């Protein structure tokens, strides 16, 4: 079922996300990255950071929470979504203790071969309103009646 075009331009209020030391550690371990700046404050300071920093794609955790909110609002289930592309522009590294605020906006909807393609812009800022990063994503929504082959 096509998405109602009137939802284009819809802005979702800023969602808070507090960056914890343990979440950065867990994320770095999950991607197998042993960089010391992700776990050791002193090592991070030697690289000029105020404290432990996160790997670049850590920023997608708050961004994807925004996707979840958007999809819930549009009544689209999880399994129908395919992430088509993702581009992030960074102003600075995500740092432990950051109280991030992520705003999510549905920029564009177009139909391609019976699927809806959504362009979603997410702006991640810190508590002082400083830019952290901007994510531009394309999400494909499969039609509801697609049964899939087999059982």
């Amino acid at each position: 079922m096509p998405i109602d075009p009137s939802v284009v331009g819809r802005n979702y209020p800023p969602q808070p996300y507090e960056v914890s030391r343990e979440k950065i550690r867990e994320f770095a371990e999950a991607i197998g990255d042993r960089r010391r700046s992700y776990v050791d404050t002193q090592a991070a300071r030697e690289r000029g950071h105020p404290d432990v920093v996160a790997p670049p794609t850590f920023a997608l955790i708050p961004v994807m929470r925004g996707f979840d909110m958007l999809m819930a609002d549009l009544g689209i289930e999880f399994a129908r979504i395919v992430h088509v592309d993702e581009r992030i522009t960074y102003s600075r590294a995500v740092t432990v203790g950051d109280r991030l605020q992520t705003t999510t906006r549905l920029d564009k909807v177009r139909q391609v071969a019976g699927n809806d393609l959504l362009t979603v812009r997410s702006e991640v800022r810190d508590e002082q309103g400083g830019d952290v990063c901007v994510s531009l994503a394309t999400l494909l929504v499969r039609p509801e009646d697609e049964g899939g082959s087999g059982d």
Partner: protein
Amino acid sequence: MTERGTEPFAVGDVVADQTYWITREHLVRYAGASGDFNPIHWNDRVARAVGLPGVVAHGMLTMALAGRLLTDWAGDPASIIEYGVRFARPVVVPDDDAGVAVRVAATVSEARDDGNVALEITVRVGEQKVLTQARALVRPPVPDGARAE
């Protein structure tokens, strides 16, 4: 953009090339760490029901591994100015101990006047590109500089 012999990075230089292995265990860890619990990344039944050959890796995990190559080369996550990918093909992760090999390589596509370097990243499983249009803009490492990590 003039080609000078003293330029540390030239267009076409392969600056990094690395193979990463993804197993089912990695998917479980990444699901927990990222909060992405989509069952296509851990449940074969659900993955097949949506037309996939089996459980597939989170696109973001593959993107994170290619990101690792970038930060390993540049020396710091803050050196990544822009990073984008297209998730062209799913990375099917077999239910065995070895998992699937993902080969990531980064090639200089532009050495900018401000010192930043644009990279074209190839991400392959076997001969197939799983990420396409994978590009990054990076502040490169200082040549002969201190490698603290």
